[in-house]
């Protein structure tokens, strides 16, 4: 009898341990990851300019789109020797972000893949122009 009793307490204690961890683990999903969408209201997508891993500029994507390039006349001017004067256009179509390469020399990459036709990008995707990374948020 005492052996059985001790075995039951032993198992109950282990069950308690896992119940505790389960409670913690349930809420970890919302804590891990960058979860960028949580901070802004509405559905408007934003382009975030990253230098290294740091955010340097943030632009709300508009319907008519922005031309990104090295030229001072580009809507989003980037100081990047690897970018063309007018490198790519980033616009909206049916609430989706569309990336359109404008015949650049070094190419435009969405998530590391070179794109030549207009390509849609969703939140969390990266657009590389020259050596500059833009993240869609």
């Amino acid at each position, binding site marked *: 009898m005492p052996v059985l009793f001790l075995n039951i307490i032993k198992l109950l204690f282990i069950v308690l341990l896992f119940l505790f*961890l389960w409670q913690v683990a349930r809420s970890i999903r919302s804590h891990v990851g960058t979860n960028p969408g949580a901070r802004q209201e509405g559905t408007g997508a934003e382009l975030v300019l990253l230098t290294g891993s740091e*955010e340097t500029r943030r632009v709300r994507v508009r319907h008519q789109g922005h031309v990104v390039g090295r030229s001072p006349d580009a809507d989003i001017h980037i100081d990047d020797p690897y970018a063309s004067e007018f490198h790519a256009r980033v616009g909206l179509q049916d609430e989706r972000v569309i990336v359109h390469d404008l015949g650049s020399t070094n190419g435009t990459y969405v998530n590391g893949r070179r794109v030549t036709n207009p390509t849609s990008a969703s939140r969390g995707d990266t657009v590389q122009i020259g050596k500059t990374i833009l993240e869609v948020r």
Partner: protein
Amino acid sequence: MSRTTEAALLVAAALLAAVGVAITEFTRGNWLDAQVAITFIVFLVSFGGFYAAVRIWAPGASSLLLPTAAFLAAIGFVEIYRIDGDLAAIQRWSLIVAGAVGAGTLWLLRRSGVAILNRYRYVLLAIGVALLLLPLLPETWPIQGATVNGSRLWVRIEVPVLDRVLSFQPGEIAKVLITIFLASYLAERADAMATVDRRIGPLKVPEPRNLGPILVAAAIAFLILIYQRDLGASLLLFALFVTMLYMATARSFYVVTGAVLAIGGGVAAYLSFGHVARRIEAWIDPFAVYEDAGYQTVQGLFAMGSGSLTGSGIGLGRPDLIPAAATDFIFAAVAEELGLAGSIAVLAAYALFVAAGFGIALRSKDRFRKYLAGGLTAVIALQALIILAGVLRLFPITGLTLPFMSYGGSSLVANAIIVALLLRVSHEERT
């Protein structure tokens, strides 16, 4: 998770500790002992104080870290209590002090935030290095170095008022200060260090002058190994440095170089130092030196093996047969009495803590905070990995404490500071 759930989980962790103590006393033939209530109150005071500080000075902080740390501390405390009641009595005071230090850290940073650490990085580095060197003081001074188990890591201070000798391991605090320095240094230099213009085979190689810091780190790690004979601290500092370098530059070159330096240093240490050679021989074939250097490892293996799936039950195993069961080998004691199931719970708790820590690093707003949170999380992760691998004989025994669980005040206090800094970084992400 809301702050209320967090509070409930902290109470639950205190209950776990109390229930564990009650079971231990029950197996000794005592029904509810006063120790059960004392343990419950100590956990409530320690973590409750820390929790209150979070609510006041870092209300935006993640609510995952404290419950996980409390969970690990509770399981660790139950095993310590079960192995040696006197150690448990000291550990209770350490828990209260650690809770107060954690709360105090949040109070200190309440206005300036972690940014102030960035500003005074060289001061912090100097204090860190001084703390590392402190145990080398002669044994006749009022503040004296001391050799314990062949490693010179301890400092003793005689307190005339209390007529007591306080002893602590300054290296524990030093590792936190060095992490802060590295985060600040790398936030400034990482770009230069990540610049690569050459290749050797598949490996991108940075400029030779960027190798300076990694060589300095290897030299410091080697000096600790020689003068303090501490394999654990030496390995931990070097691994931390390589991890943070990789975190900041994303260049596998540094990891490869670090591994080469570590293996080279390991072989050199094996050939030239008796204490390292003994550890490695005890790792390769502990049964051959069972009577001597391999005794601890073998006892640990027997303990874990006898634990089987659900263990012997708290209070019913013989973890007291393992040398250093309450400190370095506490995981073997847990595996013996709570079995594979309990060990997995412990590992899962570390995984949750590390995931939460890296989550904070990913969401933090600038590089210093990213590397700080990532580095502090890496300290806990690496320390747990190194000592767990040692206990499981995947790696030679190095003599580190298992974070939050092992008996030891310095370690608890240092880990409380780490938790407080992580909470503060996570609070600042929203501001």
